[in-house]
């Protein structure tokens, strides 16, 4: 489904005032919800087998942001998670490492230590995750704290209250400020919490807003609300990054998060990536899965391909 990207884009003009930003975002073409869902569903019917499946599973494992975001997180749990990220399947060292571990800011140091020397990144949620209901100073302090502790990536949440009430420039300014706080060392992922944005049009607007403000990644959700990543909203965001690159030459990554639990689901998302954004995004620098239980299913499927026997939860780690 081709979407018409806005023909001209001069970010300086667009973001010069609240009204020009609103004019731009509301000038984006409306989303054909039925068409979008049908397209996402149709791409989900592809049958991926044998060698292609093996490739998809390894690619998906390398794209996982292994996540623990619980109030009950302990340094011990984060260390266990880090060990799992480095050696997802200790019985098979050909298994790729995951892309990153994703933790709360106060666990960054522990995570950093656990994955040291492995190439696995440490991502930290910040900006008063998951609600994002705090003053900007507090959010920025949260970010600086995580960056200082060594986070390679920052997952921020946007202010949905401001977005839904139409104060787009406030959201924009916050993202810019957070991006600045990330400095040059940390990549910024911007979480829209698509489940709270109500409409596909809003998701498209949020995607463009985030990319204009300098996001390195746009991410669907926190995983803390009822509706998280769906094929349809991820497809929409993939179209946005594709169109944004066509317009500006800047490539932005996409990260669906929450609710992706099975290998089958993950492969469906990879098909969406390949068919929408293209092969350039089939790399963990540009596409991630925010997930925790997905990894175990990927590993069980990987074991099935390697041995020919269906595996069970007894043969992967409990987390």
């Amino acid at each position: 489904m081709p979407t018409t990207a806005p023909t001209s884009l001069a970010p300086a003009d667009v973001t010069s005032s609240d009204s020009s930003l609103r004019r731009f975002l509301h000038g984006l073409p409306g989303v054909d919800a039925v068409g979008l869902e049908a397209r996402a569903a149709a791409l989900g019917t592809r049958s991926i087998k044998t060698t292609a499946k093996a490739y998809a599973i390894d690619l998906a494992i390398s794209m996982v942001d292994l996540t623990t975001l619980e109030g009950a997180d302990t340094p011990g749990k984060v260390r266990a998670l880090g060990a799992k990220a480095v050696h997802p399947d200790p019985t098979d060292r050909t298994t790729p490492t995951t892309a990153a571990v994703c933790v709360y800011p106060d666990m960054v140091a522990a995570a950093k230590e656990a994955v040291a020397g492995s190439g696995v990144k440490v991502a930290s949620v910040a900006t008063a995750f998951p609600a994002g209901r705090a003053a900007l100073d507090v959010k920025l302090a949260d970010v600086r704290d995580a960056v200082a502790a060594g986070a390679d990536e920052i997952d921020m949440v946007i202010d949905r209250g401001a977005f839904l009430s139409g104060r787009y420039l406030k959201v924009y300014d916050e993202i810019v400020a957070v991006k600045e706080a990330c400095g040059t060392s940390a990549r910024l992922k911007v979480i829209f919490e698509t489940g709270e944005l109500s409409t596909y049009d809003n998701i498209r607007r949020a995607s463009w807003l985030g990319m204009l403000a300098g996001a390195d990644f746009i991410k669907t959700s926190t995983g803390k609300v009822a509706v998280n990543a769906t094929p349809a909203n991820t497809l929409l965001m993939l179209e946005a990054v594709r169109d944004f690159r066509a317009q500006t030459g800047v490539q932005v990554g996409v990260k669906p998060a929450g609710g992706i639990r099975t290998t089958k689901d993950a492969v469906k998302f990879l098909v969406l990536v390949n068919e929408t954004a293209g092969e350039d995004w089939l790399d963990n620098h540009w596409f991630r899965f925010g997930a925790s239980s997905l990894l175990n299913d990927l590993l069980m499927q990987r074991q099935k391909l390697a041995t020919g026997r269906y595996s069970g939860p007894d043969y992967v780690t409990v987390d």
Partner: protein
Amino acid sequence: MSERLSVFKTYKLYVGGKFPRSESGRVYEVTDSKGNWLANAPQSSRKDARDAVVAARKAFGAWSGATAYNRGQVLYRVAEMLEGRKAQFVREVADAQGLSKSKAAEQVDATIDRWVWYAGWTDKIAQVIGGANPVAGPYFNLSSPEPTGVVAVLAPQESSFLGLVSVVAPVIATGSTAVVIASEESPLPALSLGEVLATSDLPGGVVNVLSGRTAEIAAPLAAHQDVNAIDLAGADEALAKELEIAAADNLKRVLRPQPVDDWAATPGTDRMTAFLETKTVWHPTGSLGASGSAY
């Protein structure tokens, strides 16, 4: 008056408390003992087997954790439901095995009695095979039976209903969950049993019924790492050997096929104990310290 059109029944699998078609979309023709077409039954694939194992594993926690008394009540409820649908089962068993109406009715009666028999055993098996074992030391040792887990059951080929229930009921009576492969030639009573189980308070996934080619479905189950035991009642000698080898990889419990002359005979407790583990608990007893206190 015009003649009424026949309403044919679409037989479906019973997996996780639902009635899906085979994932493969395949069906095969089921005939009566004289070769007349009866119905099409789903021909399950290895993915149906995998899904059934997932459902059985999911159901295991709650079913094994239910009180033995409660399991007995549920099993008795199954017998009650069967009683109400006796006519259907008599017809299906008569067709499947080429029996007269009265002989088939005898079989169905015996089957219902078999459920009742096993329903009674749920809260008695622990007393019979568990034990309080005196040991040489200031301890007491208790052993109690625990369910094995997910059991793959190859139902007997010749006795489509009584044989089926005689191998399924002991598995679930003791708290394990089952993935059952129905008799290949006569799967209809087994598929109808699924409908009865769905309406008898039995939690979804405790029994999962698959129909199709026994060898095709049994192979992935025997090799499956998340299946704890396999009952080979419905396998011929060559298949049983092959499955036993596949089952060795994760040390499944294997119940080899044994010749059964008469399924109606009282079965004894062997089929229940085949899928039980023994848990032993050491318990301090008597005076432990100088004070003479017990604890």
